[in-house]
């Protein structure tokens, strides 16, 4: 059970939040090709190292926020630190 630092609620157990995965950018659906769209839907970098993630503070402030997490060590830092 890792600790995730919510910028509003402070350190919380990860079970209080929902991990939403790596930050992605939604292409313009009016112009995106199917291939671009599916890249957005399904393809992630998944590095063993630092990744910028979105989390949803489900039991707390109900805010979506991004943090950086090292997937190898579970160390976290604010996403502004990069």
């Amino acid at each position: 059970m890792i600790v995730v630092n919510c910028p509003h609620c402070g350190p919380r157990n990860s079970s209080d939040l929902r991990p939403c995965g790596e930050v992605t950018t939604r292409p313009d659906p009016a112009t995106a090709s199917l291939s671009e769209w599916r890249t957005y839907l399904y393809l992630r970098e998944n590095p063993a190292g630092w990744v910028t993630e979105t989390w949803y503070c489900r039991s707390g402030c109900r805010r979506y926020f991004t943090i950086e997490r090292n997937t190898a060590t579970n160390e976290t830092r604010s996403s502004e630190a990069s």
Partner: protein
Amino acid sequence: MPTSIPRGYVRMPDIEFQSPISHGPISTPDGSVSIEDETSTTKVVVRAAAGTAAAADLGVPYGQSRLRADGTLVCGTRPDEWTLFAAAGRAAEVIAPVDTDGFVNAIDITHGRAMMRVSGPKATALLAKVCNIDLADDMTPDGAVFSGSVAKVTCDLLRADRAGEASYLISCERSFGSYLFAALADASTEFGASLPAGLSIH
């Protein structure tokens, strides 16, 4: 039921507000902890964008609370969101003075939230059985407002000590109310409470 049909209803003043919690207060013989239903409390949520007059008037940031001169308890329940508690039946009076200039909404959620109070010297120990949040004084002091999972139900909590003793107001979505009350009552058995028949989560 009558067989002929009168226009068979009574007027509002006679219609009782029904709480989802059908049990009276639970307490331990030594007074170490008590659990009371406070669902009838007027609850109004105000959503106000930063920079609006309403936000400034409410005056407390997320995580803090204050008692207004008119007896309304103002809680910063989320960023740009406040919950106002007042005596039963005062929703209109609480909503009316909210300055709606800008992107501001005030909604009566009295019917939508069950609320209970856990008090006493063992209140914090009781909550620690069902809530993973650090309830130490330097994390959640008297007056602190926070949200978290209580017995697996997402709740808004306010620490509002009474006479120097720890006391928490816990509110949840109304439909969870009877379950949450039973879960808290179940947790209170460690401190000596005995449960009335029919109040069980097992």
